[in-house]
Structures are given as structure tokens and as C-alpha cells.
């Protein structure tokens, strides 16, 4: 179990006039290889929550354990190691791009952790391949001339080049067009399923999270208000209504048909799987 949080609270600008309690008494566990989606309104504490997991922020109360060790006890050196293992991709990561060439941008991390140029080179090639950027075509392109989707993939490759075992992402698809979103989400699903990297991602859009994640957590006003496996999402229909969260249309349809006695299996909540079942039922006339 890589992450265990026990009764974690966090306050911004503590002791000052504008003190804001961002998180209150969080208790939960993330398993190795999970793909967890975290959702919540702006200011609900989701970004704070991510930053606690790789000790960019320190829990003000309670404990954050990584592989059984209390993060509060980590030395500076251990923290550097931790941040390699627990990669973090901030919102709009393309804004942190600074190098002129794609290659140098991605090699920044590997060089920082002291890899020689041969190893760094291998890491750059691997991570570019992972995010679907062709090495020959892109490595000597200038970062400034890339599209925003490409920039985001470069930024992502920059983190992957550190070979994280767990990946934290803050709104990885924000501001991308449909195609760009699809590429990023598919890719995240791929590294989770094929390479067993734990993925914890924060997003606003329920449909996106449901399409790739296996577990869903909703944070509201600093508290976890829902924590469920994605396949059981319809069990929480009323709760979602209470929270003012709309299901994607195909799941809304599945829920209403279920209520009318149709047997629809939601182990796979993808549009295709649900649509196929509905179509089959209509065809068989039941």
C-alpha cells in the first residue's frame, strides 16, 4: 500500500486573518497500481490533497504514510528520492517548460538525478515513446513551436523520464481539445494497465474520470464525501444528485432503465459497453 492517510488536515495561511481550512480529517488508503480519480468543485481541496502525497505540503494534523513510512520524518535526501518515485504533474504543466529544445526539456529531470548522458538519453527516448511523440520527429523541435497538446505531452514525458512508480496529476486534460484529451487519457490508462504505475488524477469532469479510472473519490469542502469503485457508481446515484453532480448521459440512461427492471451490467461503464447492452435488449425485444 503506497499511500495511507490518517486523519489528515491542512490549513492555508495558518494563524492569519485569511486562514483557510483546505482539508479536514482525511482517512483513506491507495493501493499499488490503482487508478483513482478525484473530483470536486474548485477550492474543495483536491490539489492540496495531491501535494500532500509527495510532501510538497506537510500535513498539519494527522499522518501521511508512504510505503509504511511517515512522510513527516523524511530527510531532504529522502524527499528527493520520494519525488522521483511519486511523480507529480501540475495543472497546465506546459507552463513550466523552459528549455529551447524538446530533448533538453525532457532530459532536465534525468540529468538532475545524476544520470550520465547515455542513461539520460535512453530515458528521453523511452518517455517520448510512452507519450506518443516520435523521437526522430520531435526531439530537436523547438518547444515554443509546439501545439498546446504537444507541449503537454512533452511536459508529461519530462516527469515520466524520472520513472515514477506512482503518478499524481492535477487536471491533466484542462484546456485541451477533444483529441488532446483523448490522447492523454488513453495514455494514462495505458501506463496504469500495462506498466502498473499507480495513477491518481484530479479532474472536474466526471465523464472523463469514469472513462479511465477504477475508483472514484469526491471531495467537498475538504472532506471525502464519496469513495467508490467506478463499477458501482450507479449505487450512489442519489448521493451524486445530492452533490449536484450529473452522470454522463449513457449512465443516466442505464440508471433509468435499471429502475424499470432492465438488467444492465455496469462493470464496464464505457459508452460502448452500455450502448451494446441496451441495443441487444431492444433487439431481443425484452
Amino acid at each position, binding site marked *: 500500500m503506497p499511500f495511507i492517510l490518517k486523519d489528515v488536515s491542512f490549513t492555508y*495561511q495558518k*494563524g*492569519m*486573518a*485569511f486562514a483557510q481550512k483546505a482539508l479536514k480529517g482525511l482517512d483513506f488508503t491507495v493501493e499499488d497500481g490503482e487508478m483513482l480519480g478525484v473530483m470536486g468543485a474548485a477550492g474543495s481541496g483536491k490539489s492540496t490533497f495531491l*501535494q500532500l502525497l*509527495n510532501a*510538497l505540503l506537510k500535513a498539519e494534523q494527522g499522518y501521511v504514510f508512504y510505503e509504511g513510512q511517515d512522510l513527516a520524518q523524511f530527510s*531532504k535526501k529522502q524527499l*528527493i528520492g520520494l*519525488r*522521483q518515485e511519486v*511523480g*507529480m504533474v*501540475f495543472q497546465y*504543466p506546459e*507552463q*513550466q*517548460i*523552459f*528549455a529551447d529544445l524538446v530533448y533538453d526539456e525532457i532530459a*532536465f*529531470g534525468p540529468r*538532475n*538525478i545524476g544520470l550520465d548522458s547515455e542513461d539520460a538519453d535512453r530515458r528521453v527516448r523511452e518517455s517520448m515513446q510512452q507519450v506518443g511523440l516520435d523521437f526522430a520527429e520531435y526531439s530537436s523541435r523547438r518547444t515554443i513551436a509546439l501545439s498546446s497538446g504537444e507541449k503537454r505531452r512533452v511536459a508529461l514525458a*519530462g*516527469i515520466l523520464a*524520472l520513472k515514477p512508480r506512482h503518478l499524481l496529476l492535477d487536471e491533466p486534460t484542462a484546456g485541451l481539445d477533444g483529441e488532446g484529451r483523448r490522447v492523454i487519457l488513453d495514455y494514462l490508462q495505458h501506463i496504469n494497465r500495462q506498466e502498473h504505475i499507480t495513477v491518481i488524477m484530479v479532474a472536474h469532469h466526471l465523464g472523463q474520470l469514469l472513462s479511465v479510472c477504477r475508483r472514484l473519490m469526491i471531495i467537498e469542502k475538504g472532506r471525502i464525501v464519496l469513495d467508490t469503485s467506478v463499477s458501482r457508481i450507479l449505487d450512489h446515484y442519489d448521493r451524486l444528485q445530492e452533490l449536484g453532480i450529473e452522470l454522463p448521459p449513457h449512465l443516466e440512461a442505464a440508471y433509468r432503465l435499471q429502475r424499470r427492471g432492465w438488467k444492465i451490467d455496469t462493470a464496464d461503464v464505457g459508452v460502448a459497453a452500455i450502448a451494446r447492452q441496451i441495443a441487444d435488449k431492444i433487439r431481443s425485444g425484452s
Partner: protein
Amino acid sequence: MFRNISLGQYLPADSILHHLDPRTKTVAGLFFILAVFAAAFPLELFFIYLAGGLLLYLSRLRMIDFWPVFKPFLIIILITVIFQLLFIPGTPLFSFSILSISYEAVETAVTFTLRFVLLLFVVRLLTATTTPVALMDGLEQMLNPLRKLGLAVHELIMIMTISLRFIPMFIEEAERIRKAQLCRGADFRIGSLSSRLKNLFAWLLPLLRSSLQRAEDLSQAMEARAYQGGEGRTRLNILRLRGGDYAYLLSMAALLAAVLLV
């Protein structure tokens, strides 16, 4: 690294001081500062402190709100006091082998500390009870006569207002990029000079770029809303001096006069 951003932060409250005209508060603040410097130790300073206490009461702020501003200055005060104690000659008050502290030194150090604290207090009081926008509005109106001399008062004040407005955002941005690069193994505090410089570059370059981008966006957004400088521009909130403003201004002027004359 950037935790201490409370220096000029407005602290909303529903108090007499909060409702005063920003021009009044600025000028009265100047009077108060002059009085602080003119006040002699100990009696006059004592009365100035009483006045300060009254202002604190009127502002409905708490002592603790001022602490974040004092804290960074403690070390400066401490160093100054030590130097004053050691190096100001006069009637010896206390001596220990080669160390000798004079009566005058103690008096100077105490006066200095009392004045410095009061100075910080009054500046903080102004920024805490007045929003930056109101402060700049007031300043613009006070400087308006200078326009006849060809000074672009409105434009200058607009630049200052925007800068003030964007400081918190800039700090947030700087912190975010720093963290992002930290996550890529860049450490800004350890390592060789060249690697630290390189990492600094990875921090400052994106920051510079996003700031320029923001400036560009903002100027376009302003132009899209037909902004074209101060000429012919009307105001939403017209500043008007009321009875309370005159009373406040007069009492501060009286305080200054009393210190100067007595």
C-alpha cells in the same frame, strides 16, 4: 519561502477606520509618522502610544494581525539595538570588563525600538484598513494637480494598482513553478553553483514568460473594454470627505502640533 505574504494584505472589518476616505488615512498617517519621529522619550512617546492604542481599538483589528509584519524586522531591530548599546558613549550605566553600556545608549536603543515598532504599526494599519485600489484611488486624486505639469498621474497610478493587484498571483505562480521543478529533481538550495544556477533558470524563465503573457492578455482585455487612459474617464466610486474624515485628520494634525510645540 513565500509564506509571508501578509505584509500589505487588506484585512476586511466593519470599523470606523475602514470607512474613512483613503486620502484622509494617507495624510493622517503621514502626520502620525512625523509625530513619531518628533516625539521625545519618554513622555511624548508614551502619549503617541496611547494614540496608537486608540487607533488599534478603532480599527477593530487584533494585535496578532500585526505580528506577521513585525516578525521579519525583529532581526534588524535586534542588530541595531546591540550596536547602539555597544557603541554609543556616555555616562556608564553598567560595565563588565571591556564591555561598557552607557545610559545614553540605553535611552537611544529604547527610543529607536519604540519608534520603529510604531512606524511599522502605522503603515500596517493603513494597508490593513484600506484596500490597495482605494489607496491608489486616493493617491491619484491627491496627485491630480500634478497633471498640469505634464505628469501622467492616472497612468502611473494604474500601473501601480495593477502591480499591487498581481503580486499575490505572481507569488502563487512562482511557488507553483518552483514546486513543479522540484518534482523534476531540481533543488534550488543544494548542489554546485552551476547546477543551482541552471535550476534557477528553469524557475525564472517560465515565470517571466507567464508574466509577460499575463501582461499581454491584460492589456488586450483592457483595450477590449475601451480603456484608453485617464482622459475623460469617469469614476464609479467618487471619493468624498465626510465629518469623520475631518475629525480624524484634525486630531492627527493636533497630535503632530502638540508634539512639535510642547
